[in-house]
């Protein structure tokens, strides 16, 4: 199966690879997936006092589409408010990267990682975790 140009581009030049201090109160960390399934994503956001995501980093164990999905997610997150970030839908990622049906689970995982990072941030700051509408798995 050939990859789309956009997947190749993100895969070759992944944005925002790295690690934020997970113990910092302004950082939310989402770790989703499982090694047995062949995908694990860790996505982190750093949020300022105005509820704006000022930094985002990822590391992903997985196929090219999983790496590209998480790279794209970090790109989209930066500059968004936490509330705006909650609205990112996995199908937006599918569309942007032209993922084939067999790779849709990569985008689902990226959406889960975003929400899980936001919830980690919320809990750290004394807020209720947002109930996630659906489990995709």
């Amino acid at each position, binding site marked *: 199966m050939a990859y789309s140009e956009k997947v190749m581009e993100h895969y070759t030049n992944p944005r925002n690879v790295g690690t934020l201090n997970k113990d910092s109160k302004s950082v939310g960390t989402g770790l989703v*997936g*499982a090694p047995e399934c*062949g995908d694990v*994503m860790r996505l982190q956001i750093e949020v300022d006092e105005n509820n704006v995501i000022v930094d985002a980093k990822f590391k992903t164990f997985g196929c*090219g589409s*999983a790496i590209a999905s998480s790279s794209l997610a970090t790109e989209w997150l930066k500059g968004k408010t936490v509330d705006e970030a909650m609205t990112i839908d996995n199908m937006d990622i599918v569309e942007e990267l032209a993922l084939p049906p067999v790779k849709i689970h990569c985008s*689902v995982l990226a959406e889960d990682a975003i929400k899980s990072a936001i919830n980690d941030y919320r809990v750290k700051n004394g807020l209720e975790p947002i109930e996630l509408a659906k489990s995709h798995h």
Partner: protein
Amino acid sequence: MELPIYLDNNATTPLDPRVLEAMLPYFTNKFGNAASRNHAFGWVAEEAVDYSREQVAKLIGCTEKEIIFTSGATEADNLGIKGVFEMYQDKGNHIITVTTEHKAVLDTCKHLEKLGAKVTYLKVKEDGLVDLQELEAAMTEQTILVTIMYGNNEIGVVQPVKEISAIAHKFGALFMTDATQAVGKIPVDVNADGIDLMAFSAHKMYGPKGVGALYVRRKNPRVKVTAQMDGGGHERGMRSGTLNVPGIVGLGKACELCRLEMDEEAKRLSGLRDKLESSLSQMEESYVNGNVEHRLPHVANISFKYVEGEGLMMAMKDLAVSSGSACTSASLEPSYVLKSLGLSDDLAHSSIRFGLGRFTTEEEIDYAIENTKKAVNHLRDLSPLWEMFKEGIDLSKIEWAEH
């Protein structure tokens, strides 16, 4: 050196130019039907097929009459297994095979289960080899066929075929082997090995695709298989259908070249394979899969822990290899062969198979080593699991949200 480098010779091999040359006349002016007995066009084709039969027979130590040409190893597997089941059903209905077989064998057995066969799927040991005691314990009076592959397509381990056939014969069963990966690569002798039926194909040994053969023993014992395709009664009634003369000529030539060059080629390829394998297994957290003593000379299967196989192959973009990772296929399950060895799913996802071949050069292997190391390091820099491993976190203690 041309890029990309082909290191997937267990999937298929390039056609040897000498094989192509032998085949070409049979596409054009020597186009006759080998079954046309009444004119020169037919005679020329028949002569070519007979000569090819000799070349094939010589490679595996049998007589010409024991070779049934087919469209490939999958058809030969089907014909051998289904044909024996049908022919010997008065004697019993039990078949023994192993879990690491090719799908052409496993799915054929599953099909026969629906028709009343009892099939035992033996597990293999951690190194991929059959446990002979388990095999013996599984034999019953109803066992008509033991079908176990010669060399494995994913990890290259070579089964103790002589010992397996001795056990099968002790209980009065036939022994069949799918030797697609072994014939032409290592010495295979149907008499020394006690083989009653054997499937193999041309395109794994530098011949063309679409042609293979089933060896069917004619003496001690005389083995019969029921035809699975009805028609003109070609191939002694066992496989109807106009013979693929150019393909058969190619298979014959490929067998002849393998017979003449196998010893030297195996030595050269195992040298290159060892070089590749020892360099890559020096990397931290990399593991060689399968028995390293009893195996084909040209295969290395290595797991690079904490990186995922498909992602890794994308980074090795100048190398054509394959992975046991799920993502390479439509299913999300990683390789059943690697899982049969007891490999955890994450190691199975992290595996890469390197298949060397006749046209692989040392320069290509040197390039492959550097390219793979770079790709593994790059992917590990991206891997949260690698980072956690480096921090000393026990990944097995984490509660993963399996999806």
